[in-house]
C-alpha cells in the first residue's frame, strides 16, 4: 500500500496504524499521529485502517515559543 508519511511517499505492507508505526520503526517512540489531517489517538491506532493514498503525520515533542 502506498501512503505518504510526513510528506514522503512510502510503501507499507501492514494496514492498521499501530502495525504501520511498528513497521516503519517507531515502536517505543513518543509520537502522536494524524491521518488525512485528522488526529488519531494512540488508543485507537490498532483499530485504524489506512487506505491507499492516505497521508500519515507522525509528530513528537519539540522546542517552541
Amino acid at each position, binding site marked *: 500500500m502506498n501512503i505518504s508519511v510526513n*510528506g514522503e511517499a512510502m510503501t507499507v505492507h501492514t494496514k492498521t496504524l499501530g502495525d504501520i508505526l511498528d513497521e516503519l520503526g517507531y515502536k517505543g517512540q*513518543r509520537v502522536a*499521529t494524524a491521518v488525512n489531517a485528522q488526529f488519531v489517538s494512540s488508543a485507537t491506532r490498532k483499530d485504524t485502517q489506512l487506505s491507499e493514498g492516505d497521508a500519515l503525520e507522525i*509528530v*513528537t*515533542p519539540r522546542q517552541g515559543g
Partner: protein
Amino acid sequence: MKQFYGTSLSSPLMLGTALYPSPAILADAFVKSGASVATVSVRREAAGDAAGDAFFQLIRKLGVHILPNTAGCHTASEAITTAQMARELFETDWIKLEVIGHADSLQPDPFQLVDAARTLCAEGFKVFPYMTEDLILADRLLDAGCDVLMPWGAPIGTGLGLVNLYGLRALRAAYPDVPMVIDAGLGVPSQAAQALEIGFDAILLNTAVAKAGNPAVMAEAFAKACEAGYLGRYADPMEPRDMAAPSTPVLGKAFLE
C-alpha cells in the same frame, strides 16, 4: 496574582524553549528565570530518532507547567489537529493557540482563531489564544470559552516591546478580571516590567532570552523585571500629571534675595 484556569503560578514569567544554543543553556536559563511555564511545540519526527523523547524528559525535569503551542498553523482545522496531538504528547489540556494569518508580521488570523478556540474549548482544552489587542476579538474569544487572553506586545521575534500601549491599556481596562498574558514582541527586561506595571498578569517570551549573548543572565534580568513590575503595580502607582509639582516643601525655604 490571578489564576490561569484555576492554576496559581509561582512566577508571572512564561518562557519559550526554542532557539537556545544548547539544551544545557536552555535548562540554565529556566533556572535563572524562575519561569513557571514552558512553551513547547510538536514537529515531525523520523523513525529511530530519540530527539523528541529526550526533549520531553528535559522539559519535565524543569518542573514547570507545560504549554504546548500550535505555532505555524494557518487554519482552524490545522490548529485543532495540532492541539489534539499536543494534548496527547504532553499530557496537558493547556494549549497556546496560534493561528497565523499574515506571513510577514505573523499576525494572528482573528476569524480562524475564534473558530479554533470555540472547538477546542468545547473539547475541554484550556485555551491561551495568541491575539492582537482588538477589543471585539477579545469579546469573541471570551464568548468562545477562553478564560485567558494573550495579546501580542509586538510581532513575534521583533523585540519592539509594547508597540500599541493605548490599545493594550484599553484591553486591560475593558476586561479587568480576565487573566491576560503579553505574548511576543518583548526584547528587553524594562518592557516586561512595563507590561506588569500596566496591569497585565504575566508575560511570555522566548527570543529575547534565547538569542541574548548570555541567555542565563538575560533570563535572570527578566525575572527581576517581572518582580519589579509586579510590585510596582501592587504598590498602586501615582497618576502622571502634565505640570511640575515640587517634591521638596516650599514652606520654610530660606529667603535669600
